[in-house]
């Protein structure tokens, strides 16, 4: 079965610093989703990547799916306290049935 491993598990940065979160899959990815979860709340959709080499940006967050389609990175530029939360990557191993599996998440704290 496919597994998603996220690194690091947790991250503490100073406000204004850049950071990168990685998501590595045990199998080829057919669509990679990034979600953000505030503590004790639901998941907020950030971005979806479909093609190897694809890169998307939203505000100060950029996500990329590597050419071999087994790893994705999420990069935050000039981090702010509002970026704090848990970042989860998700993928669909079901061959098109949209049944997502998730990584365990990366907990991000941003200190002023």
């Amino acid at each position: 079965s496919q597994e998603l491993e996220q690194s690091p598990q947790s991250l503490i940065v100073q406000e204004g610093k850049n950071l990168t979160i990685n998501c590595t899959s045990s199998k080829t990815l057919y669509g990679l989703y990034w979600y953000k979860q505030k503590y004790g709340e639901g998941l907020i959709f950030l971005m979806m990547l479909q093609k190897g080499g694809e890169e998307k940006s939203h505000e100060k967050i950029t996500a990329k799916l590597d050419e071999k389609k087994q790893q994705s990175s999420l990069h935050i530029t000039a981090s702010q306290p509002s970026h704090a939360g848990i970042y989860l990557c998700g993928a669909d191993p079901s061959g098109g049935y949209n049944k997502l599996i998730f990584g365990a998440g990366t907990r991000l704290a941003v200190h002023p």
Partner: protein
Amino acid sequence: DAMVIQNPRYQVTQFGKPVTLSCSQTLNHNVMYWYQQKSSQAPKLLFHYYDKDFNNEADTPDNFQSRRPNTSFCFLDIRSPGLGDAAMYLCATSRDSGSYNEQFFGPGTRLTVL
């Protein structure tokens, strides 16, 4: 605003006492999902409905059941909650079931079992 709503946000039940969690959506999406997320773990899919068709994950315990009486509502029933069922339960919807259909999540219901 169109959204996914879960009630209640917090539910406390006693060991063995049946409990029902509710999810409703105003997105008119075909697919509704239930995930279980235990503390510091990844969300895990329990089952989903495509319209009225129920799809159970192979490793979902029989203790968990679901109902979807109409497009807008979906319920998660836990027949005899155990201490290990304490978790956040997340409802999600998507327009269709194929790949690349974004899933929209509700705020979750945190279940405590005493």
